[in-house]
């Protein structure tokens, strides 16, 4: 019954994945400069042989088409290349950094989804009131200012003036002697988690509020009231379930971003996650590492979309296909 739909979705996902890795590959190979330039800017002039040797070793002297096919072949065989900087397989370093990224992104994603949906539903239901309008304006204010400004301001106020939190990093210097203390990590993680939560609440809130507004105007909501259903049951049974539908894609994409990390926040807080890794890899022109990072981002987002598509099958009866009528 659903097999056809699922296969179709799967095919499209695969196609999207293939196209995006091709684009990533071409863009990264068009980027000027390479790792050897970053490492020793004058080496190529003084000792061209060393530079040539380096390029030969990593296969960078082959024609670009050939490199592309080798890359595609390797990707599907689980070989994502070696990082120039770290001298380890790309996958290994990514999985290491992913752990640290999740420490701040797991709680912040969870918090922002819960708070955003709750506030959006609440104020969408009572739209037009003074409270609703003031919250809406506060949300626009939060959203209008970029996350890195919030990050810097929070560090300035809570880290510098009040001295409540460390200015950056993920652990105190004492860890060198005493080993990793998880309370200490948490202490370092609070500000980044707070910033990330703050900055992603408005998007979820907007969508939920909007979706709620559309639902509240529907005739079946008025009918539910006319039936004599209590207000909270109208909200719970009729409005909330229908208003939640468009949120599914949003939630899965938010979860996908959890893994791709946040370049700004991690860089500002010197948090050793995927975001900071990306930032450093760009600076160092660490080609294979960048390819690997982009690949994993693409993969995660495509998988998340695929999951969203499938979950609609179960949640929205209208999408059920091929049912005998």
């Amino acid at each position, binding site marked *: 019954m659903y097999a056809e739909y699922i296969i179709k979705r799967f095919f499209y996902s695969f196609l999207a994945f293939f196209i995006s890795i091709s684009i990533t590959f071409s863009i990264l190979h068009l980027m000027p400069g390479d790792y050897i330039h970053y490492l020793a800017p004058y080496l190529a002039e003084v000792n061209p042989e060393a530079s040539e040797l380096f390029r030969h070793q990593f296969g960078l002297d082959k024609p670009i088409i050939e490199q592309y096919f080798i890359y595609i072949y390797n990707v599907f065989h689980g070989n994502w290349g070696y990082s120039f900087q770290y001298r380890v397989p790309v996958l290994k370093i990514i999985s290491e950094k992913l752990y640290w990224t999740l420490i701040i992104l797991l709680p912040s994603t969870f918090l922002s989804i819960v708070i955003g949906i709750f506030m959006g539903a609440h104020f969408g239901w009572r739209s037009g009131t003074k409270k609703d309008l003031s919250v809406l304006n506060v949300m626009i204010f939060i959203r209008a200012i970029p996350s890195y400004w919030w990050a810097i301001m929070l560090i300035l106020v809570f880290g510098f003036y009040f001295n409540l939190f460390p200015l950056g990093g993920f652990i105190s210097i004492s860890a060198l002697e005493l080993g990793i203390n998880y309370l200490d990590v948490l202490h370092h993680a609070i500000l980044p988690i707070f910033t990330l939560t703050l900055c992603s609440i408005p998007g979820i809130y907007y969508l939920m509020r909007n979706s709620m507004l559309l639902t509240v105007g529907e*005739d*079946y909501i008025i009918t*539910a*009231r*006319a039936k004599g259903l*209590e207000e909270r049951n109208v909200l719970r049974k009729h409005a909330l*379930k*229908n208003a939640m539908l468009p949120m599914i894609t949003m939630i899965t994409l938010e979860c996908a971003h959890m893994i791709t990390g946040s370049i700004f926040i991690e860089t500002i807080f010197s948090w050793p996650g995927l975001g900071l890794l990306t930032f450093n890899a760009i600076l160092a022109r660490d080609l294979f590492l960048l390819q690997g990072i982009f690949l994993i981002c693409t993969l995660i987002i495509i998988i998340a979309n695929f999951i969203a598509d499938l979950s609609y099958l179960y949640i929205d009866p209208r999408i059920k296909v091929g049912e005998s009528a």
Partner: protein
Amino acid sequence: MIEVKDLRKHFSSGILKKHSTKAVDGISFLMERGETLGLVGESGCGKTTIGRLLLRLLEPTSGKVIFDGIDLQQLKKAELRRLRPRMQMIFQDPDASLNPRMTIADSIAEPLKLWRKMGKSELKERVSELLEMVGLNPEHLNRYPYQLSGGQNQRVVFARVLALNPDFIVADEPTSSLDVSVQAQILNMMQELKKEFNLTVLFISHDLEVVRHISDRIAVMYRGKIVEMGNTKDVLGYGKHPYTNALVSPVVIEEDALLQGDMKPVNAFGCVFYPRCPFAAESCSKREPEMVEVEKGHWVLCDKI
């Protein structure tokens, strides 16, 4: 059964300069039990607002609605809620008035679960019974609204409304979104059900043919006021108000010519129809007309009669 006394609803908008729209502007009428009153008028004249005010789904600015001797405005929330099953509403778009995520059976069963204590098997039986009453098969029970046609969905809406055995129904353009053959089916069904359950119906529509078919009496509305009210054949056959005549006029060109003129300027004291009235006299813009009974039960809001 229903008594409406000088009902008003003004909507205000604008931040700096408050602008108030008089959606319903001093309307009074009576409805007998078992009667169908057709409410006609162009879009935006306040028909839908009246429907919602009658069920107190909207709070009126002033005025009274008395339902079976009970003043709705005096009721507390809980009391009003207990009265709800006796008065129901049907909307124009059946697809929008059914929750898309509930099966037909769930939609019909919800009001029953809410107000009648029933066992599971009894509930199931009653739902099937209702479905049959509106001409649908039990096989439709587990379908979703999107799987049925507009006409079928409107039948489901009727079944849901009838589940509560209401006395009074406001039908807000219930057939406007259906095609003509289905319209006739639904209207016929409605009349049968009306007789069977002795329903009192306020039938709101802009379609004169439909209203002629179904109503005992007709009220014609223009910009928040009832301009003419009386038995169906009197109003549609021997209309007195110039607006009614423009509506029923069979000649399309003439109607257009008649209904030309600006909608905007209405003198605060004058007749609402003054700017567009072909028979308007100087005095019409200065004095608000009063309801005149031209024959028994036939009222017209015009000074020129």
